[in-house]
């Protein structure tokens, strides 16, 4: 089904199979917390937190257990009540190690909540302080500390809530918009207040009509808020593409959305902000879509941070046979899962177990210059050329033709008939160029 209705971005992009049927109609269910939770002290972009607790301490559910004095960072919180049994290096989803606080669950869910006040009486600074204290980060996947985003360097007039959910398979934002529209809208208003914006736009892809209806119903009497229906086209949920579609503004190369007066926040992030402000709840649980052809009973699960990934798969009936690949997040941009013992973190939107028929891998056959990557690139780059230059270490030449403008949406690799690892090479090129410039400052 081609859904050509709705607004979109002008260049590149492609309607790709979205494979959301298995979970888009399934209500969010809660997974009971495990005996032991593992809370990594870094679940965000920026500096790692230092532990605020010691082994043997008793902690409450929601209590801050790690924080950092660095500007770009966000505190982390206990997701169960109980005793701290270890503070040690633990493996993350992508295989990297990170210092983590391990808590033995006492099963009591003894709550710690932030003090709350009516949002109308709060200043922008007070809202930002609550958002920071609650440890809220971009829950769509980026994990950027939200309180920093709420203090834009330029005047902002528009807050855009990202409900595009353009990654295939994922439905957590979709379900949250259907089931928690009021909370999301309250959160949106709080973001607008904190950022000084006068209007809020909720952008939703046209393949989620129930979410569009649910949100419209909640905002019908609020002239400052509106829903923008977006065309089903990957990567519609990429920040720059979303801004272009929603308000027809183009973020200058290398700049932030605030440059054109916008802030973009994910649906789940808006809900977390509302819960922090109205309930005093810190960021210790989230909704994760567990799906893929190899999952017996795909579901959207509300799960505590720190729960091992294998518990999520077990809760969904386990896997059928041997999955070809396990992914943390969406299949286009999510990393492969290196360990099922790794814990759920704040920015994990999905756990996918894909069968060999669904999954696709790099084959790196010769480029036949078919230009599909060129036509698909939403930024207007030449992924074939950038990939070749990057793979050969010619970073400076690649940088001259837009290497650093790549948003890593992976669509170039997706469309390539020769299954070349275009986006992988480009990512390596970006890292290589950044390192090169750091070691040799420009003359």
């Amino acid at each position, binding site marked *: 089904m081609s859904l050509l209705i709705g607004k979109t971005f002008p260049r590149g992009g492609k309607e*790709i199979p979205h494979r959301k049927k298995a979970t888009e109609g399934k209500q969010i269910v809660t997974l009971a917390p495990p005996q032991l939770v593992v809370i990594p002290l870094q679940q965000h972009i920026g500096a790692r937190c230092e532990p605020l607790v010691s082994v043997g301490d008793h902690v409450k559910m929601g209590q801050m257990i790690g924080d950092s004095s660095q500007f770009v960072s966000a505190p982390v919180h206990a997701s169960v009540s109980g005793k701290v049994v270890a503070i040690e290096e633990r493996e993350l989803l992508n*295989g990297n190690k990170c210092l983590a606080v391990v808590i033995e669950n006492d099963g009591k869910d003894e709550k710690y909540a932030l003090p709350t006040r009516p949002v109308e009486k709060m200043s922008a600074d007070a809202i930002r302080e609550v958002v920071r204290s609650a440890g809220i980060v971009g829950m769509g996947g980026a994990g950027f500390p939200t309180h920093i985003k709420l203090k834009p360097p330029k005047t902002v007039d528009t807050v855009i809530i990202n409900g595009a959910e353009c990654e*295939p398979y994922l439905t957590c934002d979709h379900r949250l918009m259907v089931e928690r529209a009021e909370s999301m809208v309250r959160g949106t208003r709080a973001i607008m207040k904190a950022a000084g914006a006068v209007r809020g736009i909720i952008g939703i892809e046209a393949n989620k009509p129930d979410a569009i209806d649910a949100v419209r119903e909640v905002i019908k009497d609020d002239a400052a808020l509106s829903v923008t229906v977006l065309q089903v086209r990957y990567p519609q949920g990429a920040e720059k593409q979303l801004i272009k579609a929603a308000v027809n*503004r*183009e*973020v*200058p*190369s*290398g*700049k932030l959305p605030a*440059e054109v007066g916008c802030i973009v926040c994910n649906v789940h992030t808006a809900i977390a902000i509302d819960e922090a402000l109205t309930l005093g709840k810190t960021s210790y649980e989230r909704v994760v879509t567990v799906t893929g052809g190899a999952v017996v009973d795909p579901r959207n699960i509300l799960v505590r941070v720190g729960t091992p990934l294998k518990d999520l798969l077990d809760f969904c009936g*386990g*896997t059928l046979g*041997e*999955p*070809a*690949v*396990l*992914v943390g997040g969406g*299949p*286009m*941009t*999510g*990393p*492969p899962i290196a360990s*099922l013992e790794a814990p759920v973190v704040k920015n994990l939107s999905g756990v*996918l177990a*894909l069968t060999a028929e*669904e999954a*696709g*891998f*790099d084959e790196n*056959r*010769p*480029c*036949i*210059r*078919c*230009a*599909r990557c*060129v*036509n698909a*690139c*939403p*930024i*207007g*780059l*030449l992924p*074939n050329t950038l990939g070749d230059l990057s793979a050969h270490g010619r970073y400076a030449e690649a940088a001259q033709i837009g290497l650093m*403008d790549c948003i890593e949406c*992976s*669509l170039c690799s*997706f*469309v*390539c*008939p*020769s299954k070349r*690892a275009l*986006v992988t090479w480009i*990512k390596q090129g970006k890292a290589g160029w950044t390192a090169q410039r750091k070691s040799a400052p420009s003359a």
Partner: protein
Amino acid sequence: MEDLKLVISPSPHVRDTDTTEGIMVAVLISLIPVLAAAVYFFGFSAIRLVLLGGATAVATEAVFQKLRNKPITVWDGSALVTGVLLALTVPPTLPSWMIIVGSVVAIVIGKQVFGGLGHNIFNPALVGRAFLTASFVGSMTAWTGPFDTITRATPLVVGAARVRLPDLFFGSVAGSLGETSALAILLGGIYLFYRGILDHRITLGVLSAVIVMSFLTGANPVYGILSGSVLFGAVFMATDMVTSPYTPRGRWIFGVGVGLIIMLIRTWGSMPEGVTYAILLMNAATPLINRWTRPRIYGQGVQRS
């Protein structure tokens, strides 16, 4: 749930279903109407040349790769496409050994010496054709009419206006195997366009340049397109992915350039037809065109609104 084997590969973890083989197979499918028309008009000779051209190309590629100790990749179908395309550009009376020589040249000189699939600068089939034309002028211009073995002049030589338009459209005229039937070529082209393989910019660029130049030189544009190998070249040869530009604007420039050079050769050159050389010349310009026509990068050259 225990002991799952975890595969670590970078994103994306899902891929489009189209493959290089798929594209080559689609090109072969798109040639079915043209092949059918060739067999209908020229009979057994068409089958002989297409089979020899295709088989020789595949065998040459396999032998070349074997000699160089490279993986043998003939199953990707690209050599077969080259051989079949070459056969469709020769006259029906061409001796068997000549198509074999042409096919070997197409694969070796046109493709493998550059490094194989994706690395060649010139359209391999047209390299083979150019070689045959230069080496065996007589045989390469010995056009016979359809349904007979009498050598006739092509519409381009006798003056297209003296040939009936329906004959030009359906293909009942003298010419190379694949170029006579505009209808068959169009069917193949529509299929390729529908499959997202043919880039309309190149094809329309060639045709529009031929039409405009025909007007300017006082020729009939309809005959200009339907006679000779313009249509075959615009649909199947100029659109070769490897040897044409990959930028959207570059493809327009490439197509228009091919059309202009065709008309320059036809009008003022010493040869009646110039499609082969027009495309080969523009192939040479392709890297430069790519460099000049990079798309605008999102967010570059914009100020705050």
